[in-house]
């Protein structure tokens, strides 16, 4: 590598390297900081005036999370909505995306417009809230899952994928006398697993990260973890009752809850990057 570097050395490259290094630090440091703060022991925290990086190691704060009934409940709600919501999202979106990709539908064009309009125009916060209330979905678990059943954007990603899907496979299925459902479930679905995984990851991170509507549409017993994190940040009294008999830093506790929300994303992140970014999203934007 040193040889390659020597051969390619130029001041321009050094400049590009330094600028990218600065950008890298700005992008990654908040993550590094939160993770190191979440495992920093209390004594270490109070002894130093500045905490730039890791110092000591403790899992106390993570133990505290799993000792707090509100947070246990919140993470259960988060997991439930992510799993159930994503499963429903994926089935509904893949089916509709496949349907819209069929070239010989008389009303395909109208349906396409039906899904494009909401991407540019919406009713706004209040009519949305009133719609949810009129449907009797307020304060139910299902309000965390049902309203975003299909994202038009992901629907068009799926449609673009099935547009370029080898039509001979579908034709072959038809020749063998398979029904249209049979073709979809037994032939198309199993051969689109990478795309299904991509859509699942996108919807999944969306459910896991969402907080605004959950903080409004449901009572605290159904609040997912990001909403509880927000309450803890805004209202330090939420921290009372924690860590009886031990000394804790609120900053570290907030960091630990944040870390618990970040780590699952970090785990699926390599897949996200591989499929979502380099493949389908970019392809769809290029049209």
């Amino acid at each position, binding site marked *: 590598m040193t040889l390659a570097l020597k051969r390619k050395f130029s001041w321009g490259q050094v400049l590009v390297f330094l600028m990218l290094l600065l950008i890298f630090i700005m*992008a990654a440091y908040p993550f590094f900081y939160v993770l190191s703060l979440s495992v920093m022991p209390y004594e270490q925290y109070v002894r130093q005036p*500045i905490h730039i990086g890791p110092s000591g190691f403790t899992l106390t704060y993570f133990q505290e999370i799993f000792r707090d009934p509100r947070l246990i409940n919140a993470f259960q709600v988060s997991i439930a909505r992510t799993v159930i919501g994503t499963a429903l999202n994926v089935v509904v979106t893949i*089916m*509709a995306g496949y349907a819209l990709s069929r*070239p010989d539908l008389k009303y395909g064009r109208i349906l396409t417009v039906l899904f494009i309009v909401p991407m540019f125009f919406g009713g706004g916060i*209040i*009519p949305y809230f009133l719609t949810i209330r009129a449907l009797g979905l307020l304060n139910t678990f299902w309000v965390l899952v049902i309203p975003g059943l299909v994202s038009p954007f992901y629907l068009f990603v799926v449609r673009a994928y099935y547009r370029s899907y080898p039509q001979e496979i579908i034709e072959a299925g038809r020749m063998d006398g398979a029904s249209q459902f049979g073709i979809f479930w037994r032939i198309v679905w199993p051969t689109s697993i990478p795309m299904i995984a991509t859509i699942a990851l996108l919807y999944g991170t969306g459910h896991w*990260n969402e907080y605004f509507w959950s903080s409004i549409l449901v009572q605290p017993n159904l609040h997912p973890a990001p909403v509880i994190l927000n309450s803890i940040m805004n209202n330090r009294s939420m921290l009372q009752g924690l860590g009886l008999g031990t000394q804790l830093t609120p900053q570290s506790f907030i960091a630990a809850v944040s870390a618990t929300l*970040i780590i699952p994303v970090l785990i699926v992140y390599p897949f996200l990057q591989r499929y979502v970014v380099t493949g389908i999203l970019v392809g769809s934007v290029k049209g």
Partner: protein
Amino acid sequence: MSYVAGPTDSVTSPKIIPLSSRGIVLWHQDLRRHWPIYLMALPAILSVLIFSYGPMFGVSIAFLDYSPVRGITGSTWVGLDNFRDAFNNPFFLPALRNTIILNVLKLAIGFPSAIILALLLNEMRLRWFKSTVQTATMLPYFISWIVAAAMFRNLLAPDGVINAVIRHVFGGQVINFMSDPYIFRWVIVFQDTWKFAGYFAVIYLAAMAAIDPVLYEVAQVDGANRLQQIRHITLPGIAPTMITMFVLLIGYLIQGGLEQVYAMYSVAVYSTADILETFTFRLGLQQSRYGLATAVGLFQAVISVTLVLFTNFLIKRYNQQGQSLF
């Protein structure tokens, strides 16, 4: 903003010859032949009809003296009264101004940042370093606004790391990032850029990868240096993508940013951080003034669609290469 990368592909129509080329297909023939296909699309159709089109019909509340007890049909028509009351509300004009200032700054900083990041990544020859930076810059896109807020609040607190560095390393004064209204505005702009630049850079990088390498070879033969190649090959090569992104982002000049601001702001910074969405939220959901709040939302939606269509029109008019969105 997370959906803006979307609708660009949706306009092209399929160039595949229909199975029945006998001309007109009647609706019941189409339905009889394709009912399983329509059935597959049905849950999605119902979902958008209820949760996207339902609220669109709900905007009629903006013209009504609405109360939940009477419902839409039982409420009286008041014309533009709600709009007049909303515009006369003392919080409206500051919120409108803040929304525009914040979103113009986000566009002015965020849009070029993503392009510059993509150009830098594209010039970087160390593969491992390029992919490391790309991985790190895209990560913020995939985390919750609440987690992003937790990070920034902690780092920028008066006793946080950034202020510690300012005091101990540079010997400066403590900066109240989160409670000084004018500095807070820049915190929001920086955080928005931090969250989205990496994601948008990937889209530009893909456009750069599609540029014919022969162009660069020819330019090198002609003696063009790297900067000249960027100026005359790379930037024109990604111009269509830049224009698409720009038109889509224009629609966000008057709306958006609710989740971010709601997670970050406090009463201390209302003077610069109270945007139309947070204003609507307080009016509608906390004071139950539904008609007023809906009027503000409709005002935003109309301006946003107008801006997108107008920008698209301008580009169509002054750009002969046909790079407009519609």
